[in-house]
């Protein structure tokens, strides 16, 4: 594992139009993002911030270049795989909230879970938990238009985190909010970041940069300045899943792997002898052990 790299962009280019009308939203864009970073991307309108966010969020494809997410090049994968990754690994927060107006707050929050195979009860339970976190659990059955802008944005953030994604992409999340609501929303994002989530946020507001661990200024589709305010070593470590999942743990491998290893290591020596004698009695432990054994062998 090369020091927790989550996203690697190499030579990313996004071109619009052909010939005379050709223009570049991104030009040979290189960026490496580590797990646990809170990145703010700033820059004038039209410098490619949103395009970058859309490409990272797998909503858009680059014309050229590599996009490596979790060690896998996802630049050329099928639209179906993209959708799957969006559902599981990426949470979006938009400037205009983008809640479905016909759905209640809780159904809006549960939306990403619909596409990852959760039962209806599991969907609602998880959505309810996510809303509780933002103190919106009393508004579960309101419709979006019945909430204030700040509340709607918090609902949108709840929707972004409900599937326990690795990356949260925020496109000017405070752009439509007054300063008080902005503050609340930023505090929530900060709290989410401190739990070990990676956040990439586009903003125009320079006063928000204090929340970030890294500020990137873009100009004409390229990085102008890139300032890290927190050392890589001090980035928050991902902690285990807060919301109970109905599905197998393997699905969320990346989130749970580091913690799993820490948990398993102390017990590693003991069961090796024990298990041979008490094999049928502890089938659960046996499975764990065999996994560890394999890992051991690989390490040697």
């Amino acid at each position, binding site marked *: 594992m090369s020091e927790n790299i989550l996203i690697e962009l190499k030579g990313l280019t996004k071109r619009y139009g052909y010939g005379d009308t050709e223009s570049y939203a991104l030009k040979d864009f290189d960026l490496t993002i580590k797990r646990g970073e809170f990145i703010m991307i700033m820059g004038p309108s039209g410098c490619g911030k949103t395009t970058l966010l859309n490409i990272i969020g797998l909503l858009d494809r680059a014309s050229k270049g590599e996009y490596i997410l979790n060690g896998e090049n996802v630049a050329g994968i099928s639209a179906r795989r993209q959708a799957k990754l969006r559902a599981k690994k990426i949470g*979006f927060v938009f400037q205009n909230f983008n*809640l479905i107006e016909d759905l209640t707050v809780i159904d809006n929050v549960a939306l990403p879970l619909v596409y990852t195979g959760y039962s209806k009860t599991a969907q609602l339970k998880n959505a309810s938990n996510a809303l509780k976190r933002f103190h919106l659990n009393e508004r579960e059955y309101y419709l979006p238009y019945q909430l204030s802008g700040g509340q709607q944005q918090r609902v949108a953030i709840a929707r972004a985190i409900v599937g326990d994604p690795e990356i949260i992409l925020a496109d000017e999340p405070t752009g439509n909010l007054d300063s008080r609501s902005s503050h609340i929303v930023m505090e929530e994002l900060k709290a989410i970041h401190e739990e070990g989530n990676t956040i990439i946020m586009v903003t125009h507001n320079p006063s928000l940069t204090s929340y970030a661990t890294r500020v990137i200024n873009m100009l004409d589709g390229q990085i102008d300045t890139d300032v890290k305010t927190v050392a890589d070593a001090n980035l928050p470590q991902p902690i285990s899943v807060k919301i109970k999942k109905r599905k197998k743990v393997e699905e969320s491998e990346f989130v749970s792997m580091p913690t799993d290893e820490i948990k398993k290591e102390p017990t590693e020596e003991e069961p090796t002898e024990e298990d041979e004698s008490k094999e049928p009695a502890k089938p659960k432990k046996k499975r764990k052990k065999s996994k560890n054994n394999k890992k051991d062998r690989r390490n040697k």
Partner: protein
Amino acid sequence: MALLVRTHYRLARAAIKDNRTRSFLTCLGIAIGVASIILILSLMGSISNLVKEQTKEIGADLIVVRPSSTKDNVTNIVEELTSANSFQKSNLAISDVKAIKNVEHVAAAAPIAVSTNTVESEKNTFDSVPILGTNSDFIKIEPLALRYGSFLTDTEDSKSVILGHTLSLALFNTINSTVGKTINIMGEKFMVAGVLDEIEKSINFDNVDFDNALIMDINSLDKYTGSTQIQQINVKAENTDSLATISSDIRSAIENQKQGDKNFTVTYGDDITHPASNLFTIVSGMLAIVAGISLIVGGIGVMNIMLVSVAERTHEIGIRKAVGASSRNILIQFLFEALILSILGGIFGLVLGYILAFLLSVITPFAPYISWQILAVTFLTTLVVGIIFGIYPALKAASKNPIDSLKHYR
């Protein structure tokens, strides 16, 4: 997968509920198409049922010999409708009846030759009275009952006739003192030998309305009107066990008689039951086409409303895609909506169709006829209509670009 299907079903139901009026009207389009199909199927079913029941009443020992045309059915029907003479040239002859009677295990054989003529009584004159020429065996085969008098006897040059119930009333304004009176046909005097009981079912495999018919000996009919086209020969077997052998015997007997002419059919059992009237077949066929067209129109309604729905919900599609819906998810979501609309319309149409069929049964002898085939056909048709007309809007929804869709506001 099952979970996703349930989710899509729930989504579609919610979307339909949100647009109640619109959904109802769309369903109505499908419903009208389905209702007319149901009505026609029910009608056809009940008619063939009527005839089937009748054949059962007559007994399982019935064999019917019909002349067959070398032309195909449609030309036949068209020709029949357009020609002044409503009966095709029959190649069955009176001598064939005799040949059939000589076949082993044949209990009775009666020809049916219908022509129309003017009938005069002392009081009234009627044009176009159907005159049925047959022989004395007829009453042994048909479930007819005489109210008064006696049936025909096999005497040469018989001048006695039997009147149908309604015809008797029409000619003499009575039924009980008709026997013994004389009537005039083509200038010849005939004596009324009997009057038939009223017939409850006016549709039968003979294509004859006995209530309005006059029955006379086929030889007399041949002699005085000069036109005998034998429509069919009804044969009663002695037992029901060997109908196949008897009918093949009959076939060879007629072939011998005709020196190898094979232009006739010998049927028994359920094969006898074919739509009682060719005209009816045509009318119901036309109706079925019209019903099919109205179903297509209903389907276009579904497509239209789905396109509107897709356009209205572009933003929603963008959001769904952004949070992880694949194009296939979106496709299925909208296809489900179209399917539910058309299936709802189908159910609605089924009910409507049977209500209409029931209303029709009040004024006609056609009882509503329900069978699993009709239900299956309805369900399949609506399913197919839903898929055909739902797939295009669904594809359109699925192919939307999430970024552009997110920028799209109502």
